[in-house]
């Protein structure tokens, strides 16, 4: 996320700046930037389109809607960003689209459910302090999803290394089919159903909306949105430190630059690849459990849509680029939230066209920036 150079005389303030303040600042800039663009566009549309012009009622509605739209966009964006990281990390190292990553996200959300359900069944859920509960749930699902990702790589991708790049893609699709139905089978047998409802309905503190006042309007912000945002920011900062500030992270970057050279330099390539899958997978898992807490119910099929969206986000930001995944995720979340909010007022279109417009934006961006927002222009060695 930030340019790195291991400085020998690293002071605490410098460290803080490089690994905490700078990335958070970067995220803030992205969020604020996206927010401003969204607001301007929303008002522009409200002034321009549906008759009469300017449509005062509409402007008023958008006024009331905007804060909620922005928060929804940011929380959605962070979920996309966290999943997109998994795509981007794996792509960076192995140059292939890990189609099974959406199922790792799903797996994380299911594990999160299992943990929370168990705590709840033990009757302990009310007595746990909220942050502890969230940390336990998220970290267990991170570890499990990370391990699953490593296992998948070991079983389904490693034997295919060096094969044409479409071959692991098909293997990944196989893994994806296998995982959904395997999770379904396990849940169906052990719980007799696979609509897994997080026991969040029992948690008053999780269900109470947070009233936020924006001028005259008050918006009820769901506490889970805030949790997602805070959780994601913390983890992204940690991730940034891991990738850019640690030796292991340097190994991953080396492998993604040039596998052969890295191996000649004495880096254990297989280990680094496993590590990449673990990190990417655990982020997917964290996103999954946070997402689960937010939406309340998950199924073995929940991974598909966020998976595709996050993949889009990764491409939008420039696949292989970690900051790009973050930016792409936020941008896509914002775009979607914005379109959902604004298209309602165009009777001939409506929210049904959100995906179409999102993709049009993607195509437009890719036409002008063929390697995504932050993707480096790959000038091939000629």
């Amino acid at each position, binding site marked *: 996320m930030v340019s790195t150079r291991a400085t020998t005389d690293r002071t605490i303030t410098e460290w803080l700046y490089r690994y905490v303040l700078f990335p958070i600042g970067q995220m803030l800039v992205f969020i604020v930037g996206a927010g401003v663009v969204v607001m301007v566009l929303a008002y522009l549309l409200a002034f321009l389109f549906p008759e009469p012009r300017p449509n005062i009622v509409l402007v008023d*509605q*958008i006024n*009331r*809607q905007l804060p*909620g*739209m922005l928060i*929804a966009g940011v*929380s*959605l964006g962070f*979920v996309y960003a966290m999943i997109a990281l998994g795509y981007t990390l794996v792509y960076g190292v192995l140059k292939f689209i890990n189609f099974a990553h959406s199922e790792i996200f799903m797996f994380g959300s299911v594990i999160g459910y299992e943990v929370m359900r168990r705590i709840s069944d033990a009757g302990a859920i009310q007595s746990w302090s909220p942050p502890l509960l969230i940390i336990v749930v998220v970290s267990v699902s991170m570890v499990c999803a990370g391990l699953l990702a490593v296992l998948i790589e070991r079983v389904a991708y490693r034997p295919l290394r060096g094969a044409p790049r479409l071959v692991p893609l098909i293997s990944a699709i196989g893994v994806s089919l296998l995982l959904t*139905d395997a999770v*379904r089978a396990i849940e169906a047998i052990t719980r*007799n*159903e*696979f*609509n897994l*409802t997080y026991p969040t*309905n029992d948690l008053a503190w999780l*269900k109470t*909306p947070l009233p936020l006042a924006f001028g005259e309007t008050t918006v*009820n912000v*769901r506490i889970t*949105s805030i949790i997602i945002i805070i959780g994601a920011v913390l983890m992204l900062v940690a991730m940034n430190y891991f990738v850019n500030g640690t030796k292991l992270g340097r190994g991953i970057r080396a492998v993604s630059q040039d596998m052969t050279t890295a191996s000649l330099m004495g880096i254990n390539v297989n280990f680094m690849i496993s590590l990449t899958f673990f990190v990417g997978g655990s982020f997917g898992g964290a996103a999954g459990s946070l*997402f689960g807490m*937010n*939406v*309340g*119910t*998950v*199924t073995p*099929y*929940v991974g598909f*849509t*966020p998976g595709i969206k996050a993949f889009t986000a990764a491409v939008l930001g420039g696949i292989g680029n970690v900051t790009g995944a973050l930016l792409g995720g936020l941008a896509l979340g914002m775009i*979607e*939230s914005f379109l*959902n*909010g604004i298209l*309602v*007022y165009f*009777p001939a279109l*409506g*929210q*049904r066209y*959100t995906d179409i417009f999102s993709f049009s934006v993607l195509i437009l961006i890719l036409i002008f920036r063929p390697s995504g927002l932050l993707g480096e222009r790959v000038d091939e060695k000629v």
Partner: protein
Amino acid sequence: MRNKRFAVLVLVVVLALALSATFVGAQDAKVIKIASQTPLSGPQSALGSSMSNGVALAVEQLSGPLTELGYKVEYVPFDDQATPDVGVANAQNLVNDPAILAVVGHLNSGVAIPSSEVYNANNLVMISPANTNPRVTGRGFTTVNRVCGRDDLQGPTGARFVNELGAKSVYVLHDTTSYGQGVAEFFQKEAENLGITVLGYEGTTETANFEGVIQPILALAPEAIYFGGIYSQTGIFINQARAAGYTGYFVGPDGFDSSEFAQLAGEAGVNTYYTSVAGPATIYPDAAKFIEDYKAKFGEDPQPFAAQSYDSAAIALNAIYTAAVLAGDVPSRAAVASVVRATKGYKGLTGTVTFDAYGDNEVGLYYVLQVGSADPAAWGSNTLLKTLEIPSPYKALLDSGS
């Protein structure tokens, strides 16, 4: 080497399966089969397998008369994967098994319509527990019947109810499936006729995070929301909508009718309204017993359309019995189909069924219910607010003509 070992493994399994059959005694009884086609895998499999279970239960409980006649009734479930191609391939497969005399299915009208072409060409009767699309029976096939309601009747019922609630504005959502969109469209038309302002009409494929859908609704502040969709989507939706501060009415079609809805929606789902063609347990005591038996056998609650599937299978079994008695032998498919079409006053779990000339229930009973509690176990005691008798379009045409 691994390749080979795998091959050996497969060979052994296949061989084992083959051999195991040699230990099966010869069959004396003539076999009659009932098939079902529902999505047993994929996201819609919760509904699909529950439907399949309903049929299985009916076959288990109601094949007594046929067994006494000396037939053995078997049940064959097919997985249509909610995909037309697979549905049609299955249909071709099952019409070629002469022992199959009736099909119960499908969940999706999009699969039912092309598949029923195949059934109809082979005189195989289909009884649908869930296809509410008017076009399913609207094509004049003699073999296609349904025990469930029609979009063009259920949607307007919902609209009239919303009107009675006194809501002046409504926001219509649907799940973009043939079922949800169908119901929502007819709802919208009727609502506009009744002078209710339709503030928005949206389709969403979202199944988990409705944040983006909810925001504009909050801004528009409709007095009621109508969501044409299935509980697995709508339960989550209302949960999130209430959490975000929506306070108006929430109304939907029979896709809501599942105890899972209570679980998914939690407290947010209380006082939600839904229309249904399935009579509530309170007035159909058999339904309570069905739920009990179903739970005992499958260890879970029946989902929407499970009871209808049970009824469909029951009608099929009755018809086969009647036709078998008439023929004195295994009846022909055509005979079964015509007996099914002639069904009159069959008292099922969910209501009384009399098929009209198009295979619709002549007089559809539509109920409006209110969710009473967030406890899934208390789903059976949802309050019945209204019962409406609506004739099928064909019946209505006859009535108006005479």
